[in-house]
């Protein structure tokens, strides 16, 4: 299925901004997800409401409490995305493939004036999967059971690995910055990229995130009893936790003026962004969603939109009892009585929680929904929580051909909140 925009090339949404040099548009998208290594496979899976959460074999999980996750099929990695596998981690590979795809769609070569291209990426564990293999061998060696591991076992191990790998692969020469803000990392990285373009620091920003499944996060979330034994069911009455996933997403962002000058087709306006912190608790969100509501309000203000303008919400929607309740409270605080009629979906119901890249992949999903004029569904596998007054999109996509503005929320450990607002471009009939 074609994931590119189905409509024309006008940019009515941007006309609201008297200073076009500060208007930031999305000109490229790329994603590697448990639904596949392409944007097309992502959209096809999202639209079908088909969950990729299920049995997995990335590592031995026999001793864990749960036994499902959404993993990327490494065997399907496109040949052209393969770098030097001995020295780059799975998270790096996801990032490189997603970024290559986004750049190709945008029709840019980052090596052109490479110092004016920046990289803004989120990751929470970088090459932890590979680090774990090294450490387990090293610990076994320390107890005399094995010889010391070869240094080559350790791929790029830190959280900056995915961003560095992309920058190296694409020849980027501008700022490279990795944000680690737990599950809000990807969204915050996109927010930083938007700011960098508005400030004129870079002409092009590649923004997104990447994380791979690893024992650390799988054991950790299980220890917190935050993982559901079944595929996660955000906002449902019987929800019992999240499902972990992996993958990467990348957006190419640039000033509207630049995109127009080079004849590019903007996919969406990156209209607003904001980040806040609950300053409340390390693992529990503020029960009334104060921080999340503040982030949403600030992002709407940044986009110069009233809450009434938002047509649908791609929620953080992890499926944990506390997160979903707090997020619903935040939405009610911002959207009031309208919340019950506001379409809400959660991409995590289909691909799991991608942690540091969740916000980025959900930004991509949000833009795809805007482009296709429909909100992707969650699987229809449980009764909505009657205590959460939300209009959940279940089972089938919701046609919203006139949708123009969408909100994507990300809420993370430590109370990190981020909100992004995207506006559909390219439909003169909707100029308003």
């Amino acid at each position, binding site marked *: 299925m074609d994931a590119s925009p189905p409509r024309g090339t006008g940019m009515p949404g941007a006309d609201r901004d008297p200073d076009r040099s500060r208007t930031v548009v999305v000109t490229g998208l790329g994603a590697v997800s448990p639904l596949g290594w392409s944007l097309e496979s992502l959209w096809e899976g999202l639209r079908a409401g088909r969950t990729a959460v299920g049995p997995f074999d990335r590592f031995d999980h026999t001793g864990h409490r749960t036994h499902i996750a959404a993993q990327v099929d490494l065997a399907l990695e496109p040949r052209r995305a393969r770098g030097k596998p001995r020295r780059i981690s799975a998270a790096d590979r996801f990032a490189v493939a997603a970024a290559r795809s986004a750049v190709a769609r945008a029709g840019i070569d980052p090596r052109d004036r490479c*110092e004016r291209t920046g990289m803004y990426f989120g990751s929470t564990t970088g090459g932890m999967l590979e680090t774990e293999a090294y450490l387990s061998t090293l*610990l076994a060696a320390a107890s005399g059971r094995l010889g010391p591991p070869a240094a080559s076992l350790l791929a790029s191990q830190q959280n900056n690995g995915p961003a560095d790998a992309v920058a190296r692969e694409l*020849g*980027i020469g*501008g700022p490279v*910055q990795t944000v680690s803000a737990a599950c809000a990392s990807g969204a915050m990285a996109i927010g930083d990229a938007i700011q960098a373009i508005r400030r004129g620091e870079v002409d092009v920003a590649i923004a997104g995130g990447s994380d791979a499944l690893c024992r*650390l996060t799988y054991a950790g979330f299980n220890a917190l009893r935050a993982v559901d034994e079944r595929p996660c069911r955000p906002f449902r009455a019987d929800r019992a936790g999240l499902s972990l996933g992996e993958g990467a997403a990348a957006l190419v962002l640039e000033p509207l003026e630049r995109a127009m000058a080079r004849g590019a087709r903007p996919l969406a306006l990156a209209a607003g962004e904001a980040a*806040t*912190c609950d300053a409340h608790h390390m693992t529990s969100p503020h029960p009334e969603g104060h921080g999340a509501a503040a982030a949403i309000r600030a992002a709407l203000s940044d986009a110069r939109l009233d809450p009434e303008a938002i047509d649908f919400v791609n929620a953080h929607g992890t499926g944990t009892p506390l997160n979903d309740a707090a997020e619903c409270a935040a939405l009610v605080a911002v959207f009031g009585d309208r919340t019950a009629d506001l379409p809400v979906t959660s991409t995590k119901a289909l691909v799991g929680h991608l942690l540091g890249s969740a916000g980025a992949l959900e930004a991509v999903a949000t833009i795809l929904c805007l482009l296709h004029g429909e909100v992707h569904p969650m699987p229809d596998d449980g009764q909505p929580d009657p205590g959460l007054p939300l209009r959940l999109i279940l089972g089938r996509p919701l046609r919203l051909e006139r949708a123009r503005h969408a909100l994507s929320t990300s809420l993370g450990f*430590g109370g990190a909140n981020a909100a992004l607002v995207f506006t559909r471009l390219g439909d003169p009939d909707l100029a308003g």
Partner: protein
Amino acid sequence: MRAEAVVTGLGTIGPCGQGREALARALLAGKPAVAEVDRRAGVHREAGARLAGLVRDRDLSRWIAPAAGRRMCFPSKLAVAAARMALAEAGLDAADTGASRVGVYLSTTFGAGLFTELLLKQVFLEGAETAQPFYFSECVANAPAAQLAIAVGARGPNMMLTQRESGPILAVARAAQAVREGRVDRALAGAVEEVTPLLHALLDRFGALALPSGGRAEMPRPFDRRRDGFLAGEGATVLVLEREDAARARGARALARIGWSGAGFDSTAGVSDWGDGHAPLAAALRAGLDEVPGGVAGIGAVVSGASGTRRGDLLEARVLRASWSGDPLPPLLVPKAVTGEYGGGILAPALLALEGASFGPTPGFAEIDPEVDVAPHSGAAQPAPERVLLTGLASGGGAAWLVLERAS
């Protein structure tokens, strides 16, 4: 007129001790602040590195109540303690920060190493079901930033940057932008790092650390011909940033003004090494310094991120020499030779340099490397600079620079 961001508070805890005075004494003495690393776990190489810049004074009870500290990993405690120290110097207390418009911008390279190790050991050796949830929630990279926000009630953006050696500069630059643009009223910015025996052993196994030789303990030797690696160091440095007009209005003393900042990437770098693409980095740095009053001549000292690595120091020297276009470089202060790499090792020394602190001779330096062709600070008396340049070239390719100015 552009709003300016100034530093009004400095908190620093590291191998030299707690607070600016302990750091200033160590920088003047010009001697690495080292301690023997615990090798009992058996993960070290026999002939490998033995020393690190460890925080020996771990009593943080002046800044963190024991009941609160027991819910934190060591890096979180360091960050909270350094932040409270900085707030105290800025004349602010927690009530002043309990607003939605205070941001936190920290950096780390490795995060909470001990808790990560403990959690993984449980999974590997004792079974996944024994995993402690507390270890997990505190081993996420942003835990120190989040704990800091909780401790002081900072409800603005909360960000942990993880870009290795360039991270501390990126964090301060990012915070300054937020202050200037009015996105936050105040920001707490800096870096935090923990060096565990396992991390030390890993860095050694990858050939990153200076090594003992000829029966003598290892010594980081920035820019020296014999340099063979860095000294790993831990600690935290947090700065309070606010708008200059707001700081003056409340009668606060500005320690420094944040000047130009820039960043780049050397795509010739390997995954865990420095590259040889000095020309584009130098062009970026030079273009930025041309915007600084007086250009490169306006830089009174460089607070260099050099740490004693073969390729990192070479790249640093080449970038600086090319940026200065053959003109003499200002004094090169190399505080990581004293504090070790990581933990924001250059942030606090840069502020001290602006205030006119005397730096002793650069430890470990004896002989110019003809290829590098620069010499670090000799210990000779220097006038207090009006402006200092901080540099941070990261293994893997990242680069960041920041200018700090004396605030009149």
